[in-house]
């Protein structure tokens, strides 16, 4: 009893002024600590960001140089006489904008198609019961083990026998689904309690409605990640479009770039300008997608 009184007394002894002073001192200390930590983190982040962005920034800077400036003995990091000539030439030499548009159409449709087909297939594998489910799933997974190069010629022969060469559908249709996507979505769906599905069934909610109203909203993050991944993959496709398209009207941007190369082998600045042009949509998709991704990941966790 005595001891308790004593300690309580010790605290009470401090006057209001003393207490305020103590608060100030402690607060300043805590603040300083926090500032140092944030500052350190910021500095580290900036350094890492610069290292990562360096090649990209250098590409932009090269694209702005006249080609004479690049082929000198001294190191030119920044253009001395910045010029937009390269961009102009690139756009004039090959129909880059048309290529970008083609790529957008192709990659966009592939992305949407994959999300639809993969989520539906994954739903079937995760929630429905049917004969041979496991065997079919194994088959789907097995397709991931076959390298694309192994089938490209037979695929080419198939589509050419259909007369599909040099069309949009030949670029799109073969990529409308992917085993990888099915696997990814299935893993996500497996973590769902099956009673959620059963409950929806009792509520009178059909399979499609269940996918649209319950599964999709709950797997926003998976869909976001999948969309970014698929879009970039489709955007970067090279072999297949090269093989099946002939005319400039259907070529995608990756092939367009190599056309810049063949037009004038010497002009690296020209090519880099082309690369910078086509990299812009790719990066912006990533930035937009990333935002979507983060939103998707947090929409479940944050109330409201």
């Amino acid at each position, binding site marked *: 009893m005595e001891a308790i009184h004593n300690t309580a007394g010790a605290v009470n002894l401090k006057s209001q002024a003393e207490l305020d002073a103590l608060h100030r001192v402690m607060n300043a200390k805590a603040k300083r600590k926090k500032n140092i930590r944030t500052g350190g983190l910021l500095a580290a982040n900036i350094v890492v960001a610069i290292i990562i962005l360096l090649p990209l920034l250098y590409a932009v800077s090269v694209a702005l140089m006249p080609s004479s400036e690049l082929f000198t003995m001294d190191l030119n990091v920044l253009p001395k006489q910045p010029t937009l000539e390269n961009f102009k030439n690139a756009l004039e030499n090959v129909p880059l904008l048309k290529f970008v548009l083609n790529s957008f159409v192709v990659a966009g449709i592939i992305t949407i198609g994959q999300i639809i087909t993969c989520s539906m297939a994954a739903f079937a594998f995760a929630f429905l019961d049917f004969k041979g489910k496991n065997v079919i799933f194994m088959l789907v997974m097995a397709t991931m083990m076959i390298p694309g190069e192994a089938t490209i010629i037979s695929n080419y022969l198939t589509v050419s026998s259909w007369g599909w060469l040099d069309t949009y559908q030949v670029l799109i249709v073969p990529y409308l689904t992917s085993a990888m996507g099915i696997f990814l979505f299935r893993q996500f769906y497996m973590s769902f309690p099956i009673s959620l599905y059963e409950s929806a069934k009792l509520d009178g*909610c059909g399979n499609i*409605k269940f996918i649209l109203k319950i599964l999709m909203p709950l797997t926003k993050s998976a869909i976001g990640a999948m969309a970014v991944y698929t879009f970039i993959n489709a955007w970067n496709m090279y072999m297949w479009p090269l093989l099946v398209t002939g005319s400039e009207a259907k070529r995608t941007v990756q092939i367009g770039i190599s056309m810049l190369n063949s037009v004038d082998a010497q002009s690296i600045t020209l090519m880099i300008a082309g690369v910078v042009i086509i990299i812009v949509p790719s990066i912006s998709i990533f930035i937009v997608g990333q935002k979507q991704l983060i939103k998707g990941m947090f929409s*479940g966790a944050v109330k409201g």
Partner: protein
Amino acid sequence: MSTLTLRNICKRYQNDNYAVKDFNLEISDQEFIIFVGPSGCGKSTTLRMIAGLEEISGGELWIDGELSNYLEPKERNLSMVFQNYALYPNMTVYDNMAFALKVRKMPKKQIDEKVQEAARILEIEHLLERYPKALSGGQKQRVAIGSAIVRNPKLFLMDEPLSNLDAKLRAQMRVELSKLHKELGTTMIYVTHDQTEAMTLGTRIVVMKAGEVSQVDSPQVLYQHPVNKFVAGFIGSPSMNFLDVSLYRGYDVENQKTYLTIEDHPVYLLEKTARLLKEKGYHRSKVTFGIRPEDIYTEEGKEANPKLEYSEAMQVTIIARELLGAEVMLYFDLEGIQFCARVEPENQTRAGEKLKVYFDLNRIHLFDMETEQTLNL
């Protein structure tokens, strides 16, 4: 209005043995039916077959006089509350409750009325805007029940809905469920492991064992007149004491009574019990004797209930004593089998002391050793 008839319902999973076999049950309107039984006995399977979540392998399911084996779950118009609540995590409580109605394209205004009404009954009006992850277990449970009642289903199915709750909340929800049943008057089928839930909630209890129905009856009848040893042992906590004994009929020279012996002491059976045994042809044989802990009396207990008919005194040595608040459990051995007696809390007998106990002769149960069927029923 809803009645339910299950006739010879069977369930087999891929050529396996029967998970449920020849399940027969008539459920009339407004009943509160409880399924109990040990784990894996087929309670959930039966419930899911009624809901339409599981295919019925054999037999017929009639809902309101309509053969319903082949109806889609949504066409059966019943609601199910799952053990893990099954709330949609991406929707608010309000939307969760409204979902089934929205799917059925009910007008917005009507939906709102129904949801508000259900929320009022369950006292969750203040939670309507929250998401499921911001709810406690008990609140989630109410929301799940709320989603079930807004649809005015013919039938409520609940699969161990309270098993995730702590004891206190469970007791509270039990009372509310009982209230809810009175208020709504909907027929309910309820699966549980919990004795208390079964005894307090049910109008009738279905005791299952290994996919088959052992007995269907009201809690009182089930408790007092179990049809076999399994039901006798399963219902009641602590469970009934069992002992294999020898039965003698008419060998007592003086009064020609039927008796059985426990540790060489005769326990004379009542006239009606003896007659039943005689009718069934049990003469001089071994049977299983069963008695519930509360039907074993001490001297004081006997004096307090002078109207009952008791066996002769039996001297036992107490091996353990448990104080459970309002009552005391005494443990002792008879022929090497441990018996438990529930006695009045004033009883001060300690472990190691000797005590005279009496059996209530009207409450003893005798079972066939082979078939385990009750003999004195």
